Protein backbone atom coordinates (compact mmCIF):
# COMPACT_ATOMS: atom_id res chain seq x y z
CA UNK A 1 0.00 0.00 0.00
CA UNK A 2 1.31 3.43 -0.86
CA UNK A 3 2.11 5.97 1.80
CA UNK A 4 -0.65 8.20 0.45
CA UNK A 5 -3.23 5.47 1.01
CA UNK A 6 -2.02 5.01 4.58
CA UNK A 7 -2.44 8.71 5.24
CA UNK A 8 -5.93 8.68 3.80
CA UNK A 9 -6.88 5.76 6.02
CA UNK A 10 -5.62 7.45 9.15
CA UNK A 11 -7.61 10.56 8.22
CA UNK A 12 -10.82 8.55 8.68
CA UNK A 13 -11.24 7.66 5.03
CA UNK A 14 -13.69 4.88 4.35
CA UNK A 15 -13.20 4.25 0.63
CA UNK A 16 -9.76 3.88 -0.96
CA UNK A 17 -9.18 4.47 -4.67
CA UNK A 18 -7.39 1.57 -6.37
CA UNK A 19 -8.00 2.22 -10.06
CA UNK A 20 -9.63 4.57 -12.60
CA UNK A 21 -7.93 7.63 -11.12
CA UNK A 22 -7.17 9.32 -14.46
CA UNK A 23 -10.62 10.86 -14.71
CA UNK A 24 -11.09 14.62 -14.73
CA UNK A 25 -11.50 16.28 -11.36
CA UNK A 26 -14.64 18.00 -10.09
CA UNK A 27 -15.22 20.01 -6.95
CA UNK A 28 -18.16 19.39 -4.66
CA UNK A 29 -19.06 21.20 -1.46
CA UNK A 30 -19.90 19.49 1.80
CA UNK A 31 -21.14 21.75 4.55
CA UNK A 32 -19.65 24.60 2.55
CA UNK A 33 -16.19 22.99 2.41
CA UNK A 34 -14.71 22.20 -1.02
CA UNK A 35 -13.83 18.55 -1.63
CA UNK A 36 -12.04 16.94 -4.56
CA UNK A 37 -13.90 14.29 -6.51
CA UNK A 38 -13.66 12.67 -9.93
CA UNK A 39 -16.14 12.78 -12.79
CA UNK A 40 -18.10 9.51 -12.67
CA UNK A 41 -17.91 9.20 -8.87
CA UNK A 42 -21.16 8.50 -7.12
CA UNK A 43 -21.77 10.94 -4.29
CA UNK A 44 -21.20 8.05 -1.88
CA UNK A 45 -17.77 7.39 -3.39
CA UNK A 46 -16.85 11.08 -3.45
CA UNK A 47 -17.76 11.75 0.18
CA UNK A 48 -16.32 8.53 1.59
CA UNK A 49 -13.03 8.98 -0.30
CA UNK A 50 -12.79 12.29 1.56
CA UNK A 51 -13.43 10.60 4.91
CA UNK A 52 -16.81 12.23 5.36
CA UNK A 53 -19.77 10.29 6.76
CA UNK A 54 -22.96 10.56 4.71
CA UNK A 55 -25.64 11.15 7.30
CA UNK A 56 -26.90 10.63 10.82
CA UNK A 57 -29.67 8.15 11.48
CA UNK A 58 -32.78 10.01 12.65
CA UNK A 59 -33.58 7.37 15.28
CA UNK A 60 -30.32 6.43 17.04
CA UNK A 61 -28.23 9.46 16.01
CA UNK A 62 -25.40 7.25 14.76
CA UNK A 63 -23.32 8.18 11.72
CA UNK A 64 -24.15 6.17 8.61
CA UNK A 65 -22.21 5.78 5.39
CA UNK A 66 -24.35 3.57 3.18
CA UNK A 67 -24.55 -0.20 3.22
CA UNK A 68 -25.82 -1.96 0.08
CA UNK A 69 -24.31 0.48 -2.45
CA UNK A 70 -26.92 -0.57 -5.05
CA UNK A 71 -30.05 1.43 -4.30
CA UNK A 72 -31.78 -1.21 -2.16
CA UNK A 73 -31.21 -0.40 1.53
CA UNK A 74 -31.95 3.35 1.34
CA UNK A 75 -29.35 4.13 4.04
CA UNK A 76 -27.48 6.80 2.08
CA UNK A 77 -30.07 9.53 1.41
CA UNK A 78 -28.50 12.95 1.85
CA UNK A 79 -29.79 16.48 1.69
CA UNK A 80 -28.50 18.97 -0.86
CA UNK A 81 -28.31 22.64 0.01
CA UNK A 82 -31.26 23.36 -2.30
CA UNK A 83 -33.41 21.13 -0.09
CA UNK A 84 -33.68 18.16 -2.43
CA UNK A 85 -32.92 14.66 -1.19
CA UNK A 86 -30.81 12.25 -3.20
CA UNK A 87 -29.61 8.69 -2.79
CA UNK A 88 -25.82 8.99 -2.65
CA UNK A 89 -24.99 5.51 -3.99
CA UNK A 90 -26.96 5.96 -7.22
CA UNK A 91 -26.32 9.64 -7.96
CA UNK A 92 -23.22 10.79 -9.82
CA UNK A 93 -21.57 13.97 -8.63
CA UNK A 94 -21.52 17.12 -10.74
CA UNK A 95 -19.08 19.98 -10.57
CA UNK A 96 -20.23 22.45 -7.94
CA UNK A 97 -22.66 20.03 -6.27
CA UNK A 98 -23.52 21.36 -2.81
CA UNK A 99 -24.30 18.83 -0.08
CA UNK A 100 -25.42 19.58 3.44
CA UNK A 101 -23.27 18.15 6.21
CA UNK A 102 -25.10 15.71 8.54
CA UNK A 103 -24.91 17.99 11.57
CA UNK A 104 -25.66 21.27 9.77
CA UNK A 105 -28.86 21.89 11.75
CA UNK A 106 -27.64 20.93 15.19
Amino acid at each position, binding site marked *: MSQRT*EQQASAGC*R*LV*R*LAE*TDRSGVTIFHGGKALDALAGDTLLTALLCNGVALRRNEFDG*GLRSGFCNMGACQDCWVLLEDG*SRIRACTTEVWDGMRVRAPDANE
Partner: protein
Amino acid sequence: MNDDTPRVLIVGAGPAGTRAAEALVAHGVAPIVVDEGARSGGQIYRRPPAGFTRPAAALYGFEARKAQAVHATLDGLRERIDYRPNTLIWNIEGGVAQALGPDGIERIRFDALILATGAMDRVIPFPGWTLPGVFTMGGSQVALKAQGCAIGDPVVFMGTGPLLYLVAYQYVHAGARVAAVLDTSHLSQAIPVFPGLLWGGRTFAKGLWYMTWLRAAGIPVRGGITPVAAEGQSALEAVRYRDRRGREHRIACTGLGIGYSVKSEVQLAELAGCEMAFDPLAQQWLPQADVDGRAIEGSVYLAGDGAGVAGADAAEVRGRLAALALLADKDIATDRASQARLRAKLRRIMRFRNALERALPVPFHLARTLPDETVICRCEAITAGDIREGRALAPAEMNRAKAFTRVGMGRCQGRVCGPAAAQILAAARGCAVEDVGRLRGQAPVKPLSIRAGAEAAVEDRSRAASI
Protein backbone atom coordinates in the same frame (compact mmCIF):
# COMPACT_ATOMS: atom_id res chain seq x y z
CA MET B 1 -46.08 -3.52 -35.59
CA ASN B 2 -49.76 -4.33 -36.00
CA ASP B 3 -52.46 -3.51 -33.51
CA ASP B 4 -52.76 -6.91 -31.86
CA THR B 5 -49.06 -7.08 -31.03
CA PRO B 6 -49.01 -7.25 -27.23
CA ARG B 7 -47.58 -4.30 -25.33
CA VAL B 8 -44.94 -5.94 -23.14
CA LEU B 9 -43.17 -4.30 -20.22
CA ILE B 10 -39.91 -5.79 -18.95
CA VAL B 11 -38.68 -4.59 -15.55
CA GLY B 12 -34.91 -4.97 -15.21
CA ALA B 13 -32.07 -4.98 -17.74
CA GLY B 14 -29.72 -7.53 -16.22
CA PRO B 15 -29.06 -10.92 -17.85
CA ALA B 16 -32.71 -12.05 -17.51
CA GLY B 17 -34.34 -8.84 -18.76
CA THR B 18 -31.86 -8.55 -21.61
CA ARG B 19 -32.41 -12.09 -22.88
CA ALA B 20 -36.18 -11.72 -22.54
CA ALA B 21 -36.08 -8.55 -24.64
CA GLU B 22 -33.90 -10.25 -27.24
CA ALA B 23 -36.30 -13.21 -27.57
CA LEU B 24 -39.33 -10.93 -27.88
CA VAL B 25 -37.72 -8.78 -30.56
CA ALA B 26 -36.76 -11.93 -32.49
CA HIS B 27 -40.49 -12.70 -32.65
CA GLY B 28 -41.55 -9.23 -33.74
CA VAL B 29 -42.55 -7.89 -30.33
CA ALA B 30 -40.76 -4.70 -29.26
CA PRO B 31 -40.95 -4.41 -25.45
CA ILE B 32 -40.59 -1.45 -23.14
CA VAL B 33 -37.55 -2.16 -20.94
CA VAL B 34 -37.42 -0.18 -17.71
CA ASP B 35 -34.28 -0.36 -15.59
CA GLU B 36 -33.20 1.39 -12.41
CA GLY B 37 -29.58 1.30 -13.51
CA ALA B 38 -27.96 4.00 -15.63
CA ARG B 39 -26.51 1.30 -17.91
CA SER B 40 -27.75 -2.21 -18.62
CA GLY B 41 -26.15 -5.32 -17.13
CA GLY B 42 -27.89 -5.55 -13.77
CA GLN B 43 -25.90 -5.93 -10.57
CA ILE B 44 -23.90 -9.00 -11.60
CA TYR B 45 -22.73 -7.51 -14.90
CA ARG B 46 -22.87 -3.94 -13.74
CA ARG B 47 -21.04 -1.46 -15.95
CA PRO B 48 -18.96 1.46 -14.67
CA PRO B 49 -19.95 4.99 -15.70
CA ALA B 50 -18.79 6.41 -19.03
CA GLY B 51 -15.11 7.33 -19.07
CA PHE B 52 -13.91 4.37 -17.01
CA THR B 53 -11.21 2.42 -18.78
CA ARG B 54 -10.60 -0.96 -17.13
CA PRO B 55 -11.22 -3.84 -19.57
CA ALA B 56 -13.99 -6.40 -19.08
CA ALA B 57 -11.45 -9.04 -18.03
CA ALA B 58 -10.47 -6.89 -15.06
CA LEU B 59 -14.09 -6.23 -14.08
CA TYR B 60 -15.74 -9.61 -14.59
CA GLY B 61 -12.87 -12.15 -14.52
CA PHE B 62 -13.97 -15.59 -15.72
CA GLU B 63 -17.37 -14.14 -16.68
CA ALA B 64 -16.03 -11.37 -18.92
CA ARG B 65 -17.29 -12.87 -22.18
CA LYS B 66 -20.76 -13.53 -20.77
CA ALA B 67 -20.96 -10.01 -19.40
CA GLN B 68 -19.86 -8.47 -22.70
CA ALA B 69 -22.36 -10.60 -24.63
CA VAL B 70 -25.22 -9.47 -22.37
CA HIS B 71 -24.16 -5.81 -22.69
CA ALA B 72 -23.78 -6.04 -26.47
CA THR B 73 -27.21 -7.67 -26.80
CA LEU B 74 -29.06 -4.88 -25.03
CA ASP B 75 -26.96 -2.20 -26.78
CA GLY B 76 -27.83 -3.81 -30.11
CA LEU B 77 -31.55 -3.79 -29.29
CA ARG B 78 -31.76 -0.16 -28.24
CA GLU B 79 -33.00 1.12 -31.59
CA ARG B 80 -35.77 -1.47 -31.65
CA ILE B 81 -37.07 -1.35 -28.10
CA ASP B 82 -38.32 1.40 -25.79
CA TYR B 83 -35.43 1.36 -23.31
CA ARG B 84 -35.73 3.54 -20.22
CA PRO B 85 -32.71 3.54 -17.88
CA ASN B 86 -32.60 5.41 -14.56
CA THR B 87 -36.25 4.57 -14.07
CA LEU B 88 -37.91 3.00 -11.03
CA ILE B 89 -41.18 1.06 -11.21
CA TRP B 90 -42.69 1.80 -7.81
CA ASN B 91 -46.17 0.30 -8.18
CA ILE B 92 -48.04 -2.16 -10.37
CA GLU B 93 -51.80 -2.24 -10.36
CA GLY B 94 -54.37 -3.42 -12.89
CA GLY B 95 -52.25 -3.50 -16.03
CA VAL B 96 -50.48 -0.24 -15.23
CA ALA B 97 -46.97 0.26 -13.89
CA GLN B 98 -46.16 3.53 -12.17
CA ALA B 99 -42.72 4.74 -13.10
CA LEU B 100 -40.42 7.44 -11.78
CA GLY B 101 -37.71 8.39 -14.27
CA PRO B 102 -35.49 11.33 -15.13
CA ASP B 103 -38.52 13.25 -16.42
CA GLY B 104 -40.72 12.57 -13.42
CA ILE B 105 -43.64 10.21 -12.93
CA GLU B 106 -45.37 8.27 -15.64
CA ARG B 107 -47.99 5.53 -15.96
CA ILE B 108 -46.99 2.70 -18.28
CA ARG B 109 -49.86 0.55 -19.55
CA PHE B 110 -49.04 -3.04 -20.49
CA ASP B 111 -50.75 -6.19 -21.74
CA ALA B 112 -48.07 -8.47 -20.32
CA LEU B 113 -45.27 -8.03 -17.84
CA ILE B 114 -41.90 -9.75 -17.44
CA LEU B 115 -40.37 -9.09 -14.04
CA ALA B 116 -36.59 -9.48 -13.95
CA THR B 117 -36.00 -7.62 -10.71
CA GLY B 118 -32.94 -9.54 -9.53
CA ALA B 119 -31.64 -9.96 -6.02
CA MET B 120 -29.81 -8.22 -3.22
CA ASP B 121 -27.53 -9.46 -0.46
CA ARG B 122 -29.11 -11.53 2.27
CA VAL B 123 -28.11 -9.87 5.52
CA ILE B 124 -28.00 -11.25 9.04
CA PRO B 125 -27.56 -8.33 11.43
CA PHE B 126 -25.06 -8.48 14.28
CA PRO B 127 -23.89 -5.96 16.86
CA GLY B 128 -22.21 -2.96 15.25
CA TRP B 129 -23.32 -3.65 11.67
CA THR B 130 -24.66 -0.11 11.19
CA LEU B 131 -21.20 1.48 11.65
CA PRO B 132 -19.77 3.41 8.69
CA GLY B 133 -17.37 1.04 6.95
CA VAL B 134 -19.66 -2.02 7.06
CA PHE B 135 -21.09 -2.80 3.62
CA THR B 136 -22.83 -5.74 2.02
CA MET B 137 -20.71 -8.14 -0.01
CA GLY B 138 -22.48 -7.00 -3.17
CA GLY B 139 -21.95 -3.37 -2.17
CA SER B 140 -18.25 -4.06 -1.65
CA GLN B 141 -18.12 -5.51 -5.15
CA VAL B 142 -19.96 -2.53 -6.64
CA ALA B 143 -17.44 -0.16 -5.00
CA LEU B 144 -14.63 -1.96 -6.80
CA LYS B 145 -16.32 -2.87 -10.09
CA ALA B 146 -18.20 0.35 -10.76
CA GLN B 147 -16.02 2.88 -8.90
CA GLY B 148 -12.51 1.41 -8.69
CA CYS B 149 -12.50 1.68 -4.89
CA ALA B 150 -11.96 -0.61 -1.90
CA ILE B 151 -14.37 -0.22 1.04
CA GLY B 152 -11.48 0.30 3.46
CA ASP B 153 -7.89 -0.52 4.28
CA PRO B 154 -7.57 -3.20 5.37
CA VAL B 155 -10.79 -5.02 4.57
CA VAL B 156 -12.36 -8.15 6.09
CA PHE B 157 -15.05 -10.22 4.33
CA MET B 158 -17.45 -12.25 6.46
CA GLY B 159 -20.48 -14.42 5.76
CA THR B 160 -20.98 -17.25 3.33
CA GLY B 161 -22.02 -17.97 -0.23
CA PRO B 162 -20.42 -17.82 -3.66
CA LEU B 163 -19.66 -14.08 -3.48
CA LEU B 164 -17.46 -14.36 -0.38
CA TYR B 165 -14.37 -15.80 -2.06
CA LEU B 166 -15.01 -14.13 -5.40
CA VAL B 167 -15.13 -10.60 -3.95
CA ALA B 168 -12.13 -11.24 -1.68
CA TYR B 169 -10.19 -12.48 -4.71
CA GLN B 170 -11.19 -9.46 -6.76
CA TYR B 171 -10.09 -7.12 -3.96
CA VAL B 172 -6.67 -8.73 -3.52
CA HIS B 173 -6.23 -8.89 -7.29
CA ALA B 174 -6.98 -5.14 -7.55
CA GLY B 175 -4.35 -4.31 -4.92
CA ALA B 176 -6.50 -3.97 -1.79
CA ARG B 177 -5.28 -5.24 1.56
CA VAL B 178 -7.58 -8.04 2.76
CA ALA B 179 -6.96 -8.90 6.41
CA ALA B 180 -9.13 -12.06 6.49
CA VAL B 181 -11.94 -14.04 4.87
CA LEU B 182 -14.32 -15.40 7.53
CA ASP B 183 -16.78 -18.07 6.40
CA THR B 184 -19.65 -19.26 8.61
CA SER B 185 -19.79 -22.44 6.51
CA HIS B 186 -17.11 -25.06 6.48
CA LEU B 187 -15.92 -26.96 3.49
CA SER B 188 -16.48 -30.28 5.30
CA GLN B 189 -20.20 -29.49 5.10
CA ALA B 190 -19.87 -29.56 1.33
CA ILE B 191 -18.81 -33.20 1.17
CA PRO B 192 -22.22 -34.88 1.67
CA VAL B 193 -23.63 -32.91 -1.25
CA PHE B 194 -20.54 -33.17 -3.40
CA PRO B 195 -22.20 -35.31 -6.12
CA GLY B 196 -24.69 -32.49 -6.64
CA LEU B 197 -21.91 -29.95 -6.82
CA LEU B 198 -20.36 -31.86 -9.69
CA TRP B 199 -23.33 -30.91 -11.84
CA GLY B 200 -21.96 -27.41 -11.83
CA GLY B 201 -18.35 -28.57 -11.97
CA ARG B 202 -16.91 -25.43 -13.47
CA THR B 203 -18.68 -23.08 -11.07
CA PHE B 204 -17.71 -25.14 -8.04
CA ALA B 205 -14.14 -25.45 -9.30
CA LYS B 206 -13.93 -21.68 -9.61
CA GLY B 207 -15.03 -21.29 -5.97
CA LEU B 208 -12.32 -23.68 -4.82
CA TRP B 209 -9.85 -21.94 -7.08
CA TYR B 210 -10.52 -18.54 -5.50
CA MET B 211 -10.17 -20.02 -2.02
CA THR B 212 -6.89 -21.75 -2.90
CA TRP B 213 -5.59 -18.60 -4.59
CA LEU B 214 -6.38 -16.51 -1.50
CA ARG B 215 -4.60 -18.97 0.79
CA ALA B 216 -1.60 -19.03 -1.54
CA ALA B 217 -1.56 -15.22 -1.45
CA GLY B 218 -1.25 -15.45 2.34
CA ILE B 219 -4.76 -14.24 3.16
CA PRO B 220 -6.12 -15.86 6.35
CA VAL B 221 -9.21 -17.90 5.38
CA ARG B 222 -11.25 -19.24 8.30
CA GLY B 223 -14.21 -21.62 8.05
CA GLY B 224 -16.94 -22.43 10.55
CA ILE B 225 -16.75 -19.04 12.30
CA THR B 226 -19.45 -17.16 14.21
CA PRO B 227 -19.68 -13.36 13.91
CA VAL B 228 -19.56 -11.55 17.26
CA ALA B 229 -19.47 -7.78 16.62
CA ALA B 230 -18.22 -4.90 14.55
CA GLU B 231 -16.50 -2.32 16.74
CA GLY B 232 -15.65 1.35 16.50
CA GLN B 233 -16.35 4.77 17.98
CA SER B 234 -18.01 6.58 15.08
CA ALA B 235 -16.80 4.26 12.33
CA LEU B 236 -15.57 0.69 11.97
CA GLU B 237 -12.25 -0.11 13.66
CA ALA B 238 -12.32 -3.90 14.08
CA VAL B 239 -14.40 -7.05 13.75
CA ARG B 240 -14.67 -9.78 16.39
CA TYR B 241 -15.57 -13.41 15.67
CA ARG B 242 -15.44 -16.84 17.32
CA ASP B 243 -13.58 -19.67 15.67
CA ARG B 244 -14.81 -23.28 15.44
CA ARG B 245 -13.47 -24.04 18.91
CA GLY B 246 -15.24 -21.07 20.43
CA ARG B 247 -12.16 -18.88 20.85
CA GLU B 248 -12.71 -15.20 20.19
CA HIS B 249 -10.54 -13.19 17.81
CA ARG B 250 -10.33 -9.51 16.90
CA ILE B 251 -9.12 -8.18 13.54
CA ALA B 252 -8.50 -4.48 12.94
CA CYS B 253 -10.10 -3.21 9.73
CA THR B 254 -11.75 -0.09 8.34
CA GLY B 255 -13.90 -1.96 5.81
CA LEU B 256 -16.07 -5.02 6.42
CA GLY B 257 -18.10 -6.73 3.70
CA ILE B 258 -20.87 -9.02 4.98
CA GLY B 259 -23.45 -11.19 3.27
CA TYR B 260 -25.01 -14.63 3.16
CA SER B 261 -25.63 -15.26 -0.52
CA VAL B 262 -28.47 -13.22 -2.04
CA LYS B 263 -32.24 -13.06 -1.80
CA SER B 264 -34.89 -12.31 -4.39
CA GLU B 265 -36.39 -8.85 -4.89
CA VAL B 266 -40.07 -9.86 -4.87
CA GLN B 267 -42.03 -6.70 -4.05
CA LEU B 268 -43.20 -5.95 -7.59
CA ALA B 269 -44.21 -9.57 -8.22
CA GLU B 270 -46.38 -9.45 -5.13
CA LEU B 271 -47.96 -6.14 -6.19
CA ALA B 272 -48.59 -7.63 -9.65
CA GLY B 273 -50.74 -10.29 -8.01
CA CYS B 274 -48.43 -13.31 -8.02
CA GLU B 275 -49.18 -16.09 -5.57
CA MET B 276 -46.50 -16.20 -2.85
CA ALA B 277 -45.22 -19.35 -1.13
CA PHE B 278 -42.60 -19.98 1.56
CA ASP B 279 -39.35 -21.50 0.29
CA PRO B 280 -37.74 -23.50 3.11
CA LEU B 281 -34.22 -23.42 1.66
CA ALA B 282 -34.18 -19.66 1.02
CA GLN B 283 -36.37 -19.06 4.12
CA GLN B 284 -38.15 -16.48 1.99
CA TRP B 285 -41.63 -16.04 0.48
CA LEU B 286 -41.27 -16.28 -3.27
CA PRO B 287 -43.63 -15.55 -6.16
CA GLN B 288 -44.83 -18.76 -7.77
CA ALA B 289 -44.47 -19.62 -11.44
CA ASP B 290 -44.16 -22.69 -13.66
CA VAL B 291 -40.83 -23.91 -15.08
CA ASP B 292 -40.97 -21.28 -17.82
CA GLY B 293 -41.65 -18.43 -15.40
CA ARG B 294 -45.37 -18.18 -16.15
CA ALA B 295 -46.90 -16.70 -12.98
CA ILE B 296 -50.26 -15.45 -14.30
CA GLU B 297 -51.03 -16.82 -17.75
CA GLY B 298 -51.20 -14.09 -20.34
CA SER B 299 -50.13 -11.30 -18.02
CA VAL B 300 -47.27 -11.85 -15.53
CA TYR B 301 -44.02 -13.71 -16.14
CA LEU B 302 -40.97 -13.99 -13.88
CA ALA B 303 -37.32 -14.35 -14.89
CA GLY B 304 -33.97 -14.36 -13.17
CA ASP B 305 -33.05 -14.18 -9.50
CA GLY B 306 -36.19 -12.20 -8.63
CA ALA B 307 -38.13 -15.45 -8.93
CA GLY B 308 -35.80 -17.47 -6.68
CA VAL B 309 -32.02 -17.21 -6.77
CA ALA B 310 -30.27 -19.37 -9.35
CA GLY B 311 -27.47 -17.13 -10.61
CA ALA B 312 -26.58 -15.26 -13.78
CA ASP B 313 -26.35 -18.20 -16.20
CA ALA B 314 -29.79 -19.39 -15.14
CA ALA B 315 -31.07 -15.81 -15.43
CA GLU B 316 -30.19 -15.70 -19.13
CA VAL B 317 -32.03 -18.99 -19.69
CA ARG B 318 -35.01 -17.93 -17.59
CA GLY B 319 -35.27 -14.63 -19.46
CA ARG B 320 -35.55 -16.46 -22.76
CA LEU B 321 -38.00 -19.01 -21.35
CA ALA B 322 -40.27 -16.33 -19.90
CA ALA B 323 -40.37 -14.52 -23.23
CA LEU B 324 -41.17 -17.75 -25.10
CA ALA B 325 -43.97 -18.58 -22.64
CA LEU B 326 -45.44 -15.11 -23.04
CA LEU B 327 -45.28 -15.35 -26.85
CA ALA B 328 -46.94 -18.78 -26.82
CA ASP B 329 -49.72 -17.49 -24.55
CA LYS B 330 -50.28 -14.63 -27.01
CA ASP B 331 -50.54 -17.14 -29.89
CA ILE B 332 -47.25 -16.09 -31.46
CA ALA B 333 -45.42 -19.09 -32.92
CA THR B 334 -42.16 -20.06 -31.18
CA ASP B 335 -39.55 -22.76 -31.64
CA ARG B 336 -40.49 -25.70 -29.35
CA ALA B 337 -37.10 -27.37 -29.78
CA SER B 338 -35.19 -24.40 -28.45
CA GLN B 339 -37.63 -24.16 -25.55
CA ALA B 340 -36.92 -27.81 -24.69
CA ARG B 341 -33.17 -27.19 -24.82
CA LEU B 342 -33.49 -24.18 -22.53
CA ARG B 343 -35.57 -26.16 -20.03
CA ALA B 344 -32.97 -28.94 -19.97
CA LYS B 345 -30.19 -26.43 -19.40
CA LEU B 346 -32.12 -24.80 -16.58
CA ARG B 347 -32.70 -28.20 -14.92
CA ARG B 348 -28.95 -28.85 -14.92
CA ILE B 349 -28.19 -25.46 -13.38
CA MET B 350 -30.92 -25.87 -10.74
CA ARG B 351 -29.54 -29.24 -9.63
CA PHE B 352 -26.22 -27.54 -8.95
CA ARG B 353 -27.79 -24.52 -7.24
CA ASN B 354 -29.68 -26.78 -4.92
CA ALA B 355 -26.51 -28.60 -3.93
CA LEU B 356 -24.64 -25.32 -3.53
CA GLU B 357 -27.27 -23.89 -1.19
CA ARG B 358 -26.98 -26.99 0.97
CA ALA B 359 -23.18 -26.96 0.86
CA LEU B 360 -23.02 -23.34 2.01
CA PRO B 361 -25.93 -23.20 4.44
CA VAL B 362 -27.15 -19.78 5.52
CA PRO B 363 -26.84 -19.58 9.32
CA PHE B 364 -30.36 -18.24 9.87
CA HIS B 365 -30.10 -19.37 13.49
CA LEU B 366 -27.63 -16.55 14.17
CA ALA B 367 -30.48 -14.02 13.95
CA ARG B 368 -32.56 -15.93 16.48
CA THR B 369 -30.07 -15.59 19.32
CA LEU B 370 -28.87 -12.00 18.78
CA PRO B 371 -28.58 -9.92 21.98
CA ASP B 372 -31.67 -7.80 22.72
CA GLU B 373 -29.84 -4.52 22.12
CA THR B 374 -28.77 -5.44 18.56
CA VAL B 375 -30.26 -3.14 15.94
CA ILE B 376 -32.26 -5.21 13.43
CA CYS B 377 -34.01 -2.46 11.43
CA ARG B 378 -31.24 -0.07 10.42
CA CYS B 379 -33.74 2.44 8.99
CA GLU B 380 -35.40 3.13 12.34
CA ALA B 381 -32.99 1.55 14.85
CA ILE B 382 -35.45 -1.11 16.07
CA THR B 383 -33.74 -3.76 18.16
CA ALA B 384 -34.06 -7.52 18.54
CA GLY B 385 -35.48 -6.84 22.02
CA ASP B 386 -38.18 -4.55 20.59
CA ILE B 387 -39.30 -7.37 18.31
CA ARG B 388 -39.22 -10.01 21.05
CA GLU B 389 -40.92 -7.99 23.73
CA GLY B 390 -44.32 -6.75 24.67
CA ARG B 391 -47.16 -6.24 22.29
CA ALA B 392 -45.22 -7.43 19.29
CA LEU B 393 -45.38 -10.92 20.73
CA ALA B 394 -49.14 -11.17 21.14
CA PRO B 395 -49.76 -11.18 17.42
CA ALA B 396 -47.08 -13.51 16.08
CA GLU B 397 -47.47 -12.21 12.58
CA MET B 398 -45.06 -9.97 10.72
CA ASN B 399 -47.53 -7.28 9.66
CA ARG B 400 -48.85 -6.96 13.22
CA ALA B 401 -45.26 -6.81 14.48
CA LYS B 402 -44.64 -4.08 11.91
CA ALA B 403 -47.65 -2.12 13.15
CA PHE B 404 -46.57 -2.37 16.79
CA THR B 405 -42.78 -2.03 16.51
CA ARG B 406 -42.37 -0.33 13.09
CA VAL B 407 -39.95 -3.07 11.98
CA GLY B 408 -40.10 -3.10 8.17
CA MET B 409 -41.86 0.29 8.11
CA GLY B 410 -38.76 2.32 7.27
CA ARG B 411 -37.26 3.49 4.01
CA CYS B 412 -36.10 0.06 2.86
CA GLN B 413 -39.58 -1.44 3.38
CA GLY B 414 -38.15 -4.45 5.21
CA ARG B 415 -35.83 -5.48 2.37
CA VAL B 416 -32.84 -5.61 4.71
CA CYS B 417 -34.33 -6.43 8.13
CA GLY B 418 -37.40 -8.49 7.14
CA PRO B 419 -35.82 -11.97 7.05
CA ALA B 420 -33.97 -11.53 10.36
CA ALA B 421 -37.02 -9.97 12.03
CA ALA B 422 -39.13 -12.99 11.00
CA GLN B 423 -36.53 -15.37 12.47
CA ILE B 424 -36.45 -13.42 15.75
CA LEU B 425 -40.25 -13.23 16.03
CA ALA B 426 -40.64 -16.94 15.24
CA ALA B 427 -37.95 -17.90 17.77
CA ALA B 428 -39.53 -15.74 20.46
CA ARG B 429 -42.89 -17.43 19.82
CA GLY B 430 -41.45 -20.91 19.40
CA CYS B 431 -43.07 -21.33 16.01
CA ALA B 432 -41.87 -21.96 12.48
CA VAL B 433 -40.72 -18.98 10.41
CA GLU B 434 -43.42 -19.50 7.80
CA ASP B 435 -46.03 -19.28 10.55
CA VAL B 436 -45.26 -15.60 11.19
CA GLY B 437 -46.11 -14.80 7.57
CA ARG B 438 -44.46 -12.17 5.45
CA LEU B 439 -44.32 -8.40 5.32
CA ARG B 440 -46.85 -7.46 2.65
CA GLY B 441 -45.39 -5.63 -0.33
CA GLN B 442 -46.49 -1.99 -0.37
CA ALA B 443 -46.24 0.76 -2.93
CA PRO B 444 -44.05 2.68 -3.33
CA VAL B 445 -41.51 -0.15 -3.24
CA LYS B 446 -38.74 2.44 -2.88
CA PRO B 447 -38.87 6.00 -1.54
CA LEU B 448 -40.50 8.70 -3.68
CA SER B 449 -40.38 12.38 -2.96
CA ILE B 450 -43.63 13.73 -1.54
CA ARG B 451 -43.79 15.83 -4.69
CA ALA B 452 -43.60 12.80 -7.06
CA GLY B 453 -46.20 10.98 -4.96
CA ALA B 454 -48.47 14.02 -5.03
CA GLU B 455 -48.10 14.39 -8.80
CA ALA B 456 -49.06 10.73 -9.23
CA ALA B 457 -52.10 11.20 -6.98
CA VAL B 458 -53.21 14.34 -8.84
CA GLU B 459 -52.85 12.55 -12.15
CA ASP B 460 -54.90 9.61 -10.85
CA ARG B 461 -57.65 11.95 -9.64
CA SER B 462 -57.88 13.91 -12.89
CA ARG B 463 -57.96 10.63 -14.78
CA ALA B 464 -60.82 9.42 -12.58
CA ALA B 465 -62.65 12.74 -13.06
CA SER B 466 -62.36 12.56 -16.82
CA ILE B 467 -63.88 9.07 -17.08
